[in-house]
């Protein structure tokens, strides 16, 4: 007997040749597989790249965003100690800014503006873009103003015309297109007006109660260590209620702000990618099943398990790489468009750089997901017995061992976890995402199995032939029920979840009907001005809707702990802003619609000398670590006032109205120094403009916010946000459709021989059509209905635990997605057998062999 070793050598060029030969014959199907992952990769690549580019830009532009290396800001006139620190660091420039109404005497136009009174060569980095160009450097000497270019256009004001800021009238010396510290959104609410700081006193606007911010700009040396600077200066400045902002901390903060949006978009892209994975998994499953006999023949001819496996692995890897190249390329193109779509949100320009990295990222991603999600099916090529070539396909043929399947499942789960963790940067969310997907998968597979068992158990034996044949197709050997219900269900689930989530997100920011509500808010009204302004409003045939007194105060201590003690004792975990913040509080004897009592009891009124029970908002309670019954001492304009937390309220800050962190009952603050906020409803734009002109002319210190403008701007921003959300959702939906086409189209070969056989036996076209139609319609309906119901549950959980919003499910998935997906599946299913109906049976059999 011979005992010499029989070994197979791996011939890579031959494996590639075989993979190519086989792929050529199935190119349309393979291209369809590729298409199912292209859009997902494109979405991930484009969003990931944009996020990277954004971060790089923020990092690179942080100095010019701030206009300095670092700055000190303070919301009140610096005291002596604060001024000493500010001066010791030798500021290059300084600014005091506040929001005020400005007037254009030429035509009487009025507008809320952010007045920035600057002294010195600001900005140190970046530049103010003005027309004429030299206005940015000469306005201080000339004693003129630089006014936002859009504002000038709106009010038809030219250089040389004048502008009135409070009681100061000065010439407009230039139009201002951009400057550090302003974004399109902030500018659209309160466009910037830059004036020389030495003239700010003449405006007479910096009175008691008015909001203002002092900023001092510094240039660092090359040796400056910003971390050390922050560590040394911040405690000193905190004590004086001032803040230090370095360009590095700004870049970190900005990065975090845009990170959240990036995370949501990433999640959406991931869903598109996952849909592609489902597509690959289900399509390759059917594709490989059809190839098993060919692989068995190859094994009969002497191909080893490794060779047979590698031929198909190379094909799938090729699909992945091709998908990656195409997806990466599309991603780059999409990425180019993001800055244009998002420019309103960003306070700086984003320069997109094209590198080879996205392409490599796309290729690696495509390769990974294609191979990973096809691996379970590919393993069948390893284990298929050559005996299958001899028409023996019973239990003796080898099946993929459970252990190998479990390893592949584990790999997929690990990949999903790592990828979602990388995108979401939160272990809990990543685990929840993966567990959610697994539960969904298990439920869908369970329902598919249950459907088959139920049809088998209660098979309607007396029904007509075509119906029985359709129902038989659902559970007999070689059925496609499990694969298609899971693929259709998972696709519908992801698309519907996205749709429901989109609804939650958009309703969170939607503006309610504002008719009859206050749309003009007049703030900074001094007590002696209130009556006169009320009269002016009445003279314009408008009603006062709110007359809200405002009293500013700071927290002096909570439960006896003062600011410096709280800072030293980190175990208290009190947020620093609580002590630094100047709270604008009010007093009234009722709660309003945007407030909901969470704990304690609301006291409407107290008598003089009683304990003062105040109501605080949930977020302040959390930051100050106080609860009902705790003691808070306020510093009200130098007078200490002891209070007790009587209740905690949930405040809906999303509503465009005046809301308060701290609310006093009546009978306490009536005699404290205060100013008033008045609101009214101006029915038309003209009446609003008329009222603004009259009030600003008589009372230059007050600020008028025209909510109609804010409504328009916010609406515009929201429509852009929803455009982006819809755009990304569109990606997923298109991918879902491609996946459906891929899965159902791949099942073509399953049924075609049977249809031909039926035709040969004398079945009419109509009968074949009915059999096929009912089978696919049932699969489409069960898959999409279960998918939508699961999405409903997942969206409800997301609303409860992630977005913390009420969830009112949209009816769209039920009335649009369910029938549309069912009809789509039906359409593709019927198109599969079109050839059978139009050609002779022999022709089809020959072609499909």
């Amino acid at each position, binding site marked *: 007997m011979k005992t010499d070793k029989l070994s197979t050598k791996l011939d890579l060029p031959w494996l590639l040749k075989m993979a190519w030969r*086989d792929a050529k014959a199935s190119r349309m199907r393979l291209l369809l597989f590729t298409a199912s992952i292209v859009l997902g990769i494109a979405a991930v690549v484009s969003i990931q790249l944009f996020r990277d580019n954004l971060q790089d830009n923020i990092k690179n532009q942080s100095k010019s965003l701030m206009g300095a290396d670092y700055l000190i800001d303070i919301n009140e006139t610096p005291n002596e100690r604060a001024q000493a620190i500010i001066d010791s660091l030798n500021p290059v420039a300084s600014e005091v800014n506040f929001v005020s109404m400005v007037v254009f005497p030429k035509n009487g136009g009025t507008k809320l503006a952010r007045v920035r009174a600057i002294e010195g060569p600001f900005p140190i980095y970046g530049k103010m873009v003005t027309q004429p160009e030299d206005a940015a450097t000469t306005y201080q000497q000339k004693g003129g103003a630089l006014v936002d270019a859009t504002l000038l256009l709106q009010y038809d004001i030219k250089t040389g015309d004048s502008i009135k800021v409070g009681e100061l009238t000065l010439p407009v010396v230039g139009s201002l297109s951009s400057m550090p510290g302003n974004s399109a959104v902030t500018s659209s609410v309160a466009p910037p007006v830059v004036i020389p700081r030495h003239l700010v006193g003449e405006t007479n606007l910096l009175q008691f109660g008015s909001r203002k911010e002092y900023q001092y700009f510094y240039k660092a040396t090359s040796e400056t260590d910003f971390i050390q600077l922050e560590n040394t200066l911040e405690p000193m400045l905190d004590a004086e209620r001032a803040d230090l902002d370095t360009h590095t901390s700004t870049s970190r903060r900005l990065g975090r702000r845009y990170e959240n949006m990036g995370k949501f978009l990433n999640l959406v892209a991931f869903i598109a990618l996952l849909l592609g994975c489902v597509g690959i998994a289900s399509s390759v499953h059917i594709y490989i099943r059809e190839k098993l*006999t060919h692989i068995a*023949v190859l094994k009969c*001819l002497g*191909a080893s*398990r490794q060779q047979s496996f590698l031929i198909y692995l190379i094909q799938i890897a090729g699909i992945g790489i091709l998908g990656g190249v195409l997806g990466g390329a599309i991603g780059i193109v999409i990425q180019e468009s993001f800055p244009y779509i998002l420019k309103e949100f960003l306070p700086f320009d984003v320069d997109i750089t094209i590198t080879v990295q996205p392409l490599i990222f796309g290729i690696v991603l495509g390769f990974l997901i294609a191979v990973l999600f096809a691996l379970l099916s590919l393993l069948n090529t390893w284990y298929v017995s*050559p005996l299958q*070539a001899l028409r023996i396909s019973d239990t003796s043929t080898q099946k993929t061992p459970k252990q190998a399947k479990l390893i592949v499942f584990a790999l997929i789960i690990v990949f999903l976890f790592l990828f979602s963790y990388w995108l979401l940067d939160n272990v809990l969310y990543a685990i929840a995402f993966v567990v959610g997907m697994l539960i969904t998968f298990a439920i869908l597979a369970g329902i598919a199995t249950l459907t088959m068992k139920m049809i088998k158990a209660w098979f309607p034996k007396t029904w007509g032939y075509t119906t029985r044949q359709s129902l038989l197709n659902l559970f007999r050997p070689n059925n496609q029920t499990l694969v298609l219900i899971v693929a259709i269900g998972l696709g519908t689930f992801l698309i519907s979840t996205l749709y429901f989530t989109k609804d939650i997100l958009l309703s969170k920011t939607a503006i309610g009907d504002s008719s009859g509500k206050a749309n003009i808010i007049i703030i900074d009204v001094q007590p002696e001005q209130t009556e006169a302004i009320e009269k002016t409003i009445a003279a314009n045939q408008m009603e006062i809707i709110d007359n809200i007194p405002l009293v500013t105060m700071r927290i002096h201590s909570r439960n006896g702990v003062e600011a410096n003690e709280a800072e030293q004792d980190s175990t208290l975990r009190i947020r620093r802003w609580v002590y630094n913040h100047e709270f604008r509080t009010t007093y009234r004897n009722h709660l309003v619609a945007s407030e909901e009592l969470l704990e304690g009891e609301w006291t409407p009124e107290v008598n003089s000398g009683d304990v003062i029970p105040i109501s605080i908002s949930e977020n302040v309670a959390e930051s100050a670590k106080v609860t009902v019954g705790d003691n808070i001492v306020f510093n009200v304009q130098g007078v200490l006032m002891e209070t007790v937390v009587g209740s905690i309220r949930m405040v809906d800050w999303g509503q465009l109205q005046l809301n308060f962190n701290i609310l006093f009952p009546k009978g306490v603050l009536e005699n404290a120094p205060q100013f008033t906020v008045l609101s009214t409803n101006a029915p038309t734009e003209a009446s609003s403009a008329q009222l603004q002109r009259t009030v600003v002319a008589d009372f230059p210190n007050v600020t008028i916010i025209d909510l109609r403008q804010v409504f328009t701007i916010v609406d515009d921003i929201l429509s852009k946000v929803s455009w982006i959300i819809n755009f990304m959702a569109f990606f997923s939906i298109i991918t879902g459709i491609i996946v459906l086409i891929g899965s159902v189209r791949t099942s073509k070969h399953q049924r075609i021989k049977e249809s031909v056989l039926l035709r040969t036996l004398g079945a009419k076209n109509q009968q074949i059509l009915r059999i096929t139609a009912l089978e696919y319609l049932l699969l489409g309906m069960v898959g999409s209905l279960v998918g939508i119901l699961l999405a409903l549950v997942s969206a409800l959980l997301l609303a409860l635990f992630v977005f913390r919003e009420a969830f009112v499910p949209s009816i769209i998935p039920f009335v649009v997605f369910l029938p549309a997906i069912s009809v789509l599946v039906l359409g593709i299913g019927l198109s599969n057998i079109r050839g059978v109906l139009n050609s002779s049976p022999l022709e089809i059999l*020959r072609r499909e062999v």
Partner: protein
Amino acid sequence: MSKILKINGLEKTYTSGSRQLTVLQNISFDVEKGQTFSIVGPSGSGKTTLLGLCAGLDTPNAGSVELCGYDFNTLNEDERAQLRNREVGFIFQNFQLLPTLTALENVSVPLELQGVKHAAKRGMELLNEVGLADRFHHYPSQLSGGEQQRVALARAFSNSPSILFADEPTGNLDDETGEKVIKLLFDLNKASDTTLVIVTHDLDLANRTQQILRLKGGEIITNQPTATH
């Protein structure tokens, strides 16, 4: 004459649900090198299962198969595949050409698996011998049944096998075409001095071989030389 195939005490059972199904039991016989040998029997007698075991496509529950001096019990699946590639040719009832490869590519595969450099040249020679040189670039779906089986014949002989297994080689062909294919099979076999093992229920075809093994219910009824040989 040396023995190319030695079967000893072969037994094969399948599990169907909870039932054990014995398909072959107590099968022992030898095949001489260069001999033509047929296995006959009614449907379900275990002919094809026996062929699968002889070619190392499956493993028995008991007994041994020794092919070209190698005991299959000592070889793993890849080693058995390698042995097939070196020593075995196959002809299937339903031709089993790879539908995604052309006629020439189908014929060349066994040689390519061996790493032979001019596989295509040898493939063309074989296609020429079976009279299909002008159809080399056609896919199986573009060929008739007879043509497909001729391509399968060319493929079976392409690696110059020591032994050729044919499973109902005319089962899917009409009489006239079947006769042509069988003539070609015997001619090529004679020319290349290959051992031929045919599984068939066609007694006329079996009678053209030197030895007939009759199976019934998974057991050998007779194993004797044909009258003409």
